[in-house]
């Protein structure tokens, strides 16, 4: 009887000890891995319904569906001033670990075009998820089938050719500027609120051409309502195997990408940065993301850390030159 008691006591002591030991090992683990303690603000530097917004909401859905984060990501649109509002907001959130932002190319162009007191060098890089591509589109009722025919028609119109796109100084207008600079043609550029509206106006014949992203035209393209005539990419796109690139047609360096990246405010501790990089790495590897990017012909382009900052700074210089060529800045 007594012996049994001793045995039980000894067993009990061992149990206590092993719990302690386990605890000791687990404590450093829980201190090291930072996790958000409240919902994460997911700022979108564009308005509701546009390409950037749709992508950010898709990412939010993927995070929520697969429980990649213990706290939800709440999308908030701050599209004012071509993203100036969002950039200033992030600047003011210096050191706040519960904010991240989905960016697009206005991340470079907006601070270049007007002095809003933001230097993108200060922000904390998280991850580049994708590079979106641009194509030259016409309505499928149009007789135009090649870039040469396109240029001939634009020249014939004598400056009255209507090119639709997003806001002036944003990506679509820069691609249009690239076309004009290279071929010496003139378009009448009509800015719309978002890429979806641009696409719809092309199908309704209210404008003559666009430089939409594939995702914006995909629905109409599949229904045979629009026709891509060239891609501003280094290689042919998988979803459009018959569409030549500008390079193939002998027009070198006519390549333009829209980056889809996530950044955090300045002054974020590295363990917080690691947490977000981890979350977006999981998004990047998720089945939903792979399917979406394939369907929409969106190029997956994972990049993180200092390489991402270098990429941002390099792209900023590219855009400085594009804006100067377009006469937007001096």
């Amino acid at each position, binding site marked *: 009887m007594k012996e049994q008691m001793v045995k039980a006591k000894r067993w009990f002591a061992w149990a206590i000890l092993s719990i302690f030991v386990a605890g000791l090992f687990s404590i450093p683990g829980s201190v090291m891995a930072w996790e958000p303690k409240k919902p994460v603000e997911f700022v979108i530097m564009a308005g509701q319904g546009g390409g950037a917004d749709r992508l950010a909401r898709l990412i939010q859905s993927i995070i929520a*569906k697969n429980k990649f984060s213990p706290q939800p990501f709440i999308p908030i649109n701050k599209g004012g001033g071509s993203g100036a509002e969002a950039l200033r907001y992030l600047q003011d959130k210096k050191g706040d670990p519960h904010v991240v932002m989905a960016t697009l190319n206005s991340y470079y162009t907006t601070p270049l075009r007007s002095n809003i007191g933001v230097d993108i060098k200060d922000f904390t890089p998280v991850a580049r998820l994708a590079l979106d591509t641009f194509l030259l589109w016409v309505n499928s009722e149009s007789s135009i089938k090649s870039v040469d025919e396109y240029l001939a028609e634009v020249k014939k119109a004598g400056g009255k050719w209507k090119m639709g796109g997003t806001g002036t100084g944003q990506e679509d207008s820069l691609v249009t500027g690239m076309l004009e600079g290279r071929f010496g043609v003139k378009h*009448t550029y009509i800015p*719309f609120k978002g890429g979806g509206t641009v696409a719809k106006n092309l199908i309704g014949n209210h404008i003559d051409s666009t430089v939409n992203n594939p995702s914006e035209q995909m629905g109409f393209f599949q*229904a045979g309502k629009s026709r891509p005539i060239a891609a501003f990419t280094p290689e042919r796109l998988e979803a459009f195997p018959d569409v030549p690139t500008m390079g193939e047609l002998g027009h070198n360096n006519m390549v333009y990408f829209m980056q889809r990246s996530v950044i955090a405010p300045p002054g974020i501790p590295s363990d917080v940065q690691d947490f977000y990089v981890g979350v977006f790495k999981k998004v990047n590897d998720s089945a939903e993301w792979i399917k979406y990017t394939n369907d929409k012909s969106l190029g997956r382009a994972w990049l993180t850390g200092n390489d991402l900052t270098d990429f941002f700074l390099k792209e900023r210089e590219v855009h400085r030159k594009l804006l100067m060529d377009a006469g937007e800045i001096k």
Partner: protein
Amino acid sequence: MDIFANLIDGFATSLLPYNMMMITLGVVAGLFIGAMPGLGSVNGVAILLPVTFLVPPTSAIIFLGAIYYGAMYGGAISSIMLGIPGASTAVATTFDGRPMAIKGEADKALVAAAVASFLGGTISIILFTLFAPLLADFALKFGPAEEFALMILAFSTFIGLGGDSILKTLFAIFFGLALSAVGLDVVSGQSRLIFGDITGFYHGINFLVLAIGIYGIGEILWTMEIDKGNVSLSKANVSLKRIFKAIKELKNTWGTVLMGSFLGYFVGILPAAGATPGSLMAYGIAKSASKTPENFGKGEIKGVVAPEAANNAASTGSMLPMLTLGIPGSPTTAILLGGMVIWGLEPGPLLFIDQREFVWGLISSLYTANVFTLLINIAFIPAFIAVLKMPFTILAPIIFVLCVVGGYAPTNDMHDVWLMLIFGLGGYLLRKLNYPMAPVVLAIVLGPLAERSMRQTLIGSHGSPMVFIERPLSLIFLIISLFLFALPLLKKLNLRKKLESL
């Protein structure tokens, strides 16, 4: 016949017990989301999006559709009961709904709103069922020129009113237009009227901030002045007999309901317009067409049914460009669109062919959701009325808190809360001077749409305004608006003739 076969298949999907449960849950959630200011259907759908990953795609979109639908009904509740628009689409409902509640006719207003919403919703779903592909082509015909002409038409419905002073109405419209110019200029990309460099103005003035300020805060100030510190109780009664009587009395308004439904539907299917302009226009037309426009703004039942029929019709309408063109007609449908994408449903012209079960399941669920919402809504009316019986000294702080939350929620920015309080004070003073406030709200909603479409058209035509009259649809709209502009003048001439003949 093809349509009916599809629809019956659709009902077979949406009437599954599981989907019926999703509809009921969605409608109840939507009703409360809609009734909470600042938590409009946009946020409601966004918050509940993750819930939908637990169920199959068709059930999920039915659930979201039901929330969206319930929220449209719910928006009217706080507009009528508290005078704060629960959602942007319900702003026009405050114009006459709140005065009705003050008169002790809250139950009548709530019944009217529910029945009108039901009819508006049902009519537009029928239109949707019969003519969806056809109407998608119609929406494509709408270019910038047509959009601008439609906006002019909307403004003219508010000028040709008769009742209020025309000069004061014009002032109110221009004041609203000036406010709507704040923020980013779409065409040049430059910021305007940001008062030095106040970042809060970068996103423009959110019109819900203006509406909550004027109607919510303004209402509190107004009641305080009238009561002069006396504690007053709203006269509010409710009984089954009164509800039936209210339904019976609605037969005088069926013309207004029809007008609101058709108008709301057509405005709803235009990409980028949505339910808010639709409901405001319906209100304006109901007032212009009325024989007693002076009663509007003082508790006219037609001023409740017109916007309510229109906003529900428009919310169904705005599903059309989303499904067929892949362009969301409103911020809420933008989020629905995001949901569809993750379920692997590609919106666009092919959706109706490739995803029959989904599309018709959704359409048929709208019919079901509509019936459910009406029943649930009427069942809740006694509970809403009980809230109204609270003394003003308790109600006012609640309203104030809801206003602040409503101002803060859409942008998470304290700047908007301060702005809302300033608008409340300003709106109260303007109201004391007999300035109509509805045109200010109209102008801030429609101003940006009108400006953008006009400038897009003129850029395309190289500055020639002739395009507006060369395009047939735009010409028709402009002729109607010219007539509405001239209406007060014609009425005056007519009146003078009558006086002379006496």
